């Protein structure tokens, strides 16, 4: 019996022939419509490919929208909390977008691909909201998730790898810049973006060229320690970089059912993305009000005492009252810190607050519990200078 493509439980990405051949563990998970690798072989090797060499991650399932039309910029300016005016062609911007309550629907990147042509990349699906906001603007919006595929190429030797792949001038790309290169008879778009907080690029191409791209990349990267990585390794580095993830560190506003589950940008530590000096944008009124009245929650990055990751833990104040919970946690092999992202009730999470997390851990089937003191830190846990240098130093 043949099964219609659309009826399949999970879909395969255009890189599947390559990723499946390399996936020794057979550990896969669904990500949106697709099945993707969690860990190809050895987690630490994949993690260190990102922080030491070149790591390749299949981005196919990222939700992608094509936005075209002469009102595109004005439209995006209304959609996003951040001013989009400076987003000239060839640039990328990170932002969040909110509903009218000022709660975050998602975070993502806007690529100004060409004159009057943008791409919005996000974790969740938003077409309904995007179209609702488009009323009155001369724009076309289309889901292009399956028309464009992508690879994240990240790590200190990633630029060398791309240069060796003959992408001339790629070293001149500044962070959040994009450029087109001829490749395999088509256009390859390369942006200096990523979810790792390290030097890195994302490569975008039509699915028909996916395998050729993969092969060229791995051939070029061989002397630079190239390795495919799965979602598990990526999760560690994104926490090290202090990046939040929809569905993990916050509930996308569209899905919120229970009271108090939505989060504003302020409540996710993203104040810098909210720019009130533009007159109109979704959620502006509510956010202005919140700014005056104060937020309900504070999102913090924590340095947790000891070495046991504080996954799924409560946060307590000095009086042993619950004041929040950890959303993501890991031991950071690069910062050599026990790190966590956490959502706290106001006013907790001020720099000098005495707060603890309750860590449970298992040793030979016996559970133990400890209260670990937490220190609130500003900025990324791990922030190598190579992330910003242009052209990047050789490793």
């Amino acid at each position, binding site marked *: 019996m043949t099964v219609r493509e659309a009826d399949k439980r999970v879909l395969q990405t255009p890189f599947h022939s390559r990723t499946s051949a390399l996936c020794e563990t057979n550990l896969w998970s669904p990500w949106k419509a697709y099945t993707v690798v969690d860990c190809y072989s*050895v987690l*630490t*090797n994949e993690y*260190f490919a990102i*922080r*030491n*060499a070149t790591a390749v991650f299949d981005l196919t399932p990222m939700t992608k929208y094509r936005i075209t039309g002469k009102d595109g910029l004005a439209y995006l300016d209304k959609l996003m909390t951040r001013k989009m005016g400076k987003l000239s062609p060839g640039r990328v911007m990170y932002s969040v977008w909110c509903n009218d309550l000022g709660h975050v629907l998602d975070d993502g990147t806007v690529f100004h691909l060409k004159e009057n042509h943008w791409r919005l990349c996000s974790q969740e699906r938003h077409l309904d909201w995007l179209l609702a906001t488009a009323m009155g603007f001369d724009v076309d919006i289309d889901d292009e998730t399956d028309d464009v595929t992508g690879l994240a190429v990240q790590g*200190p*030797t990633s630029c*060398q790898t791309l240069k060796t792949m003959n992408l001339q001038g790629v070293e001149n790309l500044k962070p959040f810049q994009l450029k087109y290169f001829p490749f395999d008879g088509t256009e390859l778009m390369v942006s200096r973006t990523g979810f790792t907080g390290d030097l890195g690029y994302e490569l975008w191409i039509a699915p028909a060229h996916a395998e050729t791209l993969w092969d060229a990349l791995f051939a070029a990267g061989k*002397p*630079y*320690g190239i390795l495919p990585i799965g979602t598990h390794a990526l999760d560690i580095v994104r926490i090290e970089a202090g990046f939040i993830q929809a569905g993990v560190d916050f509930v996308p506003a569209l899905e919120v059912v229970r009271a108090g589950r939505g989060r504003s940008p302020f409540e996710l530590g993203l104040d810098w993305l909210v720019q009130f000096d533009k007159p109109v944008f979704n959620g502006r009124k509510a956010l202005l009000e919140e700014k005056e009245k104060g937020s309900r929650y504070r999102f913090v990055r924590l340095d947790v005492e*000891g*070495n046991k990751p504080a996954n799924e833990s409560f946060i307590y104040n000095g009086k042993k009252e619950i004041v929040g919970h950890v959303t993501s946690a890991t*031991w950071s*092999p*690069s*910062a*050599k*810190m026990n790190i966590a992202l956490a959502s706290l009730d106001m006013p907790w999470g001020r720099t000098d607050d005495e707060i603890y997390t309750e860590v449970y851990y298992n*040793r030979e089937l016996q559970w*133990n519990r400890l209260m670990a003191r937490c220190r609130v830190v500003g900025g990324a846990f*791990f922030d190598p200078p190579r992330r910003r240098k242009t052209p990047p130093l050789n*490793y």
Partner: protein
Amino acid sequence: MKKYDAIVIGAGHNGLTNAAYLAKAGLDVLVLEKNPYIGGATVSRSLYEGWTYSNCSYVCSLFRPEIYRDLELARYGLQIIPYEGGITFMKNGDYFGNYADDERHHREIARHSKRDANAYHRYTADVSRQTRLIRPFMMRTPPDPTSFKPRDVMELIYIIKTYWDLGEEILYDTIRFWTMSVGDFLDEYFESSIIKAHLAGAGIIGTALGVYSPGTAYVLLHHYMGDVDGTIGAWGFARGGMGSIAKALADAFQSFGGEIKVDAGVDKILVSNGRVKGVVLENGDEYHANTVVSNLDPKRTFLKIMEEKDLPADVVKKAKNFKIRGSSGKLNISLDGMPSFYAIPKDHELLKADFHFIDSMERMERAYDDWKNGTWSKDPYLDTLIPTQVDPTMAPPGKHMMTIFVQYCPPKVEGKDWTDEQRDAFGKTVIDQISEYSPDFKDLILHAEIRTPREMENEVGLTEGNIFHGELTMDQLLFNRPFPGYAQYRGPVKGMYMSGSGTHPGGGVMGAPGANSAKEILRDLRRKNTVPEAFSDE
């Protein structure tokens, strides 16, 4: 003339750790290093253009994560990348591959002995039990068992209790373990000689003892008690070479206002009225401080840079009798490409870790016989790695750097000083052994640094070239390191301290001796302690 609060002699990684914690406590600290570069045995230098060697130590596991974190060494660029794999090549053309994941490892041992594959689980549990016992003592000052000071008594009780809680049987096992030979220990678990040979290496590295000499089981433990990111027993590469550790420590030290002078060999520690007052350099310059820390090994400290007249006679005697026999050599090689090996496909993942070319403990014991006879092993035990398969920073793309640790290599050849010809012949012995297993290795060699104990003594100041600043045998461990009565980092002269690998918990790139010593110094100076508590495994 400016007076410092403290002077640390020797910019080895322990000296730098010590200095960093003193400076962090607000002291004005000067580090004096005889070489034009820092790091001591934790050093990386470029001797051939485009390549960087880790000239002495080459892999990292023992370095205390508490220090790494507390001094924020990641911010100063330090990165330790764990590796897994390992392989021992066999004379008959076969090999044993030391896979890290349980099932592949089991399958691979079973290829040599099905029973051993299963016995390995018993072996790991027993070794883990021992490492678990010893790890908490790394960041603690050993008690003085003859003292009645409350602190010593409490610490002794703590130790006794830790072991007593285990029950009688395990206590006996522990005592045996600490005194037996690695050979006897492995014979209790395994029947296959290749498995034993692969595991026995850790029991003799850096040690002037053979696999069947009592005390070598502990040396194995010493190599298993570290960790990388919480994986106990794991080893890793320092990105950019082991010198990155010294560099990061130096940066941390300087961030606290510390000062380092290189090309500043200390001739003598100045003592007057039974207390230190500073040091005088080989060039005659003097620097003054009421606290002077020696990061040199105990023999050099007490017999070279201190005057006998300033020391109690028993210390001079103990220093003279201190066991610090050199037994190791090192080759660092620039390679034009990745060598291939007859036994396995090119670029095999097992090559990303340590590889060896000796397949039985009998061969290892014979290698030791050569050392006893005053010459280098003709069929040596090699601990070989090619870190550039992982680290992109130490050789040009596609090229490689190989580090070869050689056991055994004597401090003198048949009682006489090494000659350059002998050194080269020693290098040739090593290269020839590898060439038996690799068709193209010899042709790929672009440059080789060959180091016998002579070079190690002359360049790093390791007496007899002993890599651990003194042997790791029970009579020189814990409260006996370096000597009974002096295991708490304090020297026999007021204001004088020790911080090097010759103190507890001993050799290796660990940082613990330096940190523990700083804690004692700050205590004496009534300063706030800056040294972090150890993480708990529990």
